[in-house]
């Protein structure tokens, strides 16, 4: 694991969570782990922000949850992407792409 981990850009955690659970239903730790692995350790997710984000997404109807057994036969709450969540992810991805391109243009303009 990389020592230097960055804080997430404001507001992106929701998008990353949606992206992660879009692959398959996942429990909280799984989501955190997956984000860290996929970012190659750049991002570290602490429990507080993760669960607040999960609560928020769930209340917005973008994900839903159910208790299931893990492969180690432990009980954990699994999060599943809903249809509105899938739509939101698509639009957020598009928006993110636009923003990144714009920022890149500004930075390279000098």
């Amino acid at each position, binding site marked *: 694991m990389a020592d230097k981990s960055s804080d997430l850009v404001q507001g992106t955690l929701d998008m990353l969570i949606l992206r992660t659970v879009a692959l398959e239903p996942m429990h*909280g*730790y799984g989501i955190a782990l997956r984000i860290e692995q996929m970012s190659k350790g750049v991002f570290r997710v*602490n*429990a*507080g922000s993760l*669960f607040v984000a999960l*609560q928020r997404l769930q209340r917005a109807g973008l994900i839903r949850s159910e208790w299931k057994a893990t492969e180690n036969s432990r009980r954990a709450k699994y999060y599943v992407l809903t249809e509105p969540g899938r739509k939101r992810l698509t639009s957020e991805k598009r928006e993110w792409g636009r923003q990144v391109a714009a920022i890149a243009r500004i930075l390279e303009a000098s």
Partner: protein
Amino acid sequence: MSLLRNIADGLRSLFRKERVSQDLDGELNGFLEMAAEEKINQGMSRADALRAVRLERGSPEVTKEVVRSAGWESVVETLWQDLRHGQRVLRKSPGFASVAVLTLALGIGATTAIFSIVNAVLLRPLAMEDPSHVVFVQETWRDIFPGLSVGNFADLKRQSTSFADLCASNDASFNLEARELPERVDGEIATANYFTTFGVQPIAGRVFTTEEDKPGQPKVVVISERLWRTKLHADPSIIGQPMRINGLPTTVVGIMPRSFDPLLSRSDLWVPAAYTAEKLADHDNHYLNVIARLKSGTSHAQAQSELNVIARVQQRQYPIDDENRGFRLQPLTTALLGDQRVGLRMMLAAVGFLLLIACANIANLQLARSRTRQKEIAMRAALGASPNRIVRQLLAENVVLGLAGAVVGVLLAYWTVAWIIAHGPAEMPRLDQSRIDARTLVFACALALLSSFLFGLAPAFRSASTRLSEVFQSSSGISGGSRDHIRSLLVVGEVSLALILMAGAGLLIRSALLVAHLNPGFDTSNVVVGRVGLPDPGYHDPALARQTFERMITATAALPGVNSVAVVSRAPLAGGGSSNGLLREGKPLDMANLVNSQLQIISPSYLSTARVPLRAGRDFTLQDTRDRTLVTIVNETLARTMWPGEKPIGKRFACCEAGPKGRMDPVWHEVVGVVADVRAWGLDRQVQPEFYIPLAQMPASAWDWIGRTMDLVVRTRGGAVPIRELQSTVASVAPAVPIYRLSTMQQKISSTLERSHFDTFLLAIFASTALLLSSVGIYGVLSYMVAQRTRDIGLRMALGASQAQIVWDVLGFGVRLAGIGLAVGLAAALAATRLLSSLLYGVRPTDAVTFAAVSFILLVVALIASYLPARRATRVDPLVALRYE
């Protein structure tokens, strides 16, 4: 959808707190366990792994707190905590809490009670379809607003285009023989479209048809649900059944719902007007209530200007009857309830003031308390509570106070409303419908919240802004200056509000006292009055009608305990009357020369029975019959108006009927006597010109004007009122004819004064409560000041100040506060009492005596309230005071 989910989820965490918390615990623990497991797999010991996870991912306790406070429900929860905390704090100072709750309950209770009456009487829409489009039409003539003549109504109906419906009715009462004894029932004679104009359907049967509203049709009647239930045992088969009304068989065709009372006249039955051709051409008698529904899209002003045009046409068409006559259009609500507005608004303002005074008092108490609570609050601030949080908490405490006050206040209001309905003036329409309903409850809650902010905000901000250092340094008791300013200001405000109320109450009391000492113009003791109406078909013959009343007089006079008996067309204070234009002999016959005067038809014994003093000339005798000279007796006001500076005896005027040569042929009446003015329309009303003509000389048509109805006036020798005997005597002379509105003259007088006495009584109660509360305020501020300055006072005494000086100082301060409040209050009261002028009799709204009296009372009370703390100040022991630190 997601908002709903959000709310549902939040509610779940609020109400199933444990379940949700367990859920979160489980999830979080699983999370940490899994993270730790990974580290253990990499070779760490379990304890080390758990510690590392805790460091990396945050402790579970903090995480839980973060997650829990992220949702909206956490705001609700803090609020709830604040409220519970507030309630605990208040429970710890029961003295303060109960005083504050009681004070507030007084304010909220009084305001809520009066509001529920205002709500029932003024605010609730009239029970009809779209009342905002319904208007009331009257004629305007000189400065009075009579009803319409049937002729003018018929023209209006034909010519106007502004109205979807235009109907007419006039009040009448009927002898009803239904099941038991004959009874007198109030009702209306109405046109067929009367019911459709208001858009109200009968609950059974139908209303009458246009066909039935024509002369010569079989008689039909629509009855009220009230009459149906109380007098007819709610008999469902009543529709289609006959009953005798005024002696004639009449078919019941429909029942109107209980709520149907469009003119607030408590009508129990409606019969078709069926105007004859002769009536439709009558432009001379003005008595119809005319109600119209505006076409949608037609404005009030448009309708009024159309009426003005029609009025001008009529003035040309009927120069004698309609000269200078116009029409006035008013929203029905204004026409029916306009009179109630001044009094009720005054009451609402009064209780509003009372509530403000109560709030000021509690704010004062809170300010005093905030001083003693400074350390507690400073401690909270030191432990990290933000000023925001502290203000919120203190406000929550006040909201608890406010809500408690509202609960007690609503209870208080509940009893007050019940009391007012039972004892309030019977004439106030819809008063009996006042109740504490959802609207009043919402009002009370809003009041509670508003007042808790009113009295809570200043003290809360003051407390929250205190600096820690100040508190612990200045425990020595030199009082904070600005704090005392606020408190003094509050007291000044209270005193001035109280003075306004006292001035209003004072004026009403003075007015009531003046009215009570007015001379009614006759001897009101031991006089019993009841009305008797002879039905038209049986007693159509004028001679028969007269003989029946004369026989009634003779029979009643023979009853034991009766001194003398008379009949009069309208006894004093019986309400109503018949107005006539009199032409003084020697003036040209022109409408402008007519003097409007009230006609009284009397039996010769009337003036002596009522003991109306004869000022000049003679009384009527049995010899004044139709074949002799027509004679009249006038009251002093008429004598003064018609023959200023002259002796009226022997003078003549024309009135009441036309001579054999047609309408313009005057019939002269010779004045044989002048009597004292009788206050016939209520003690507090102006006396009108009035003339009397003897029963034996009245024109035959006058029996129709007065509806063959007269008041039987009986002077007894004192003792019990012989109600039974009177009823059976009347029935023995005229079978199936009831005597109604039977009461003593004194009862009639007090019922006309009921309304003004009620206003006076309530305002006096409010004013004394206000005075009491504001004197408590003065007392509170001064006691606090004395307590704060114990050390100063001790020091001054040690330096040689006398007790008298100390007393004067404290008294002076109290009187200064009261004085400033008095000055402000006097200025405001002078402006405010002008609104009362319509409720006052014989007192100007700026009456100096009243203002001086209430100022004096207020100053005396202020002195007493200041004296107690002043005396306490002199008991300060210099040694103790100096050691006080």
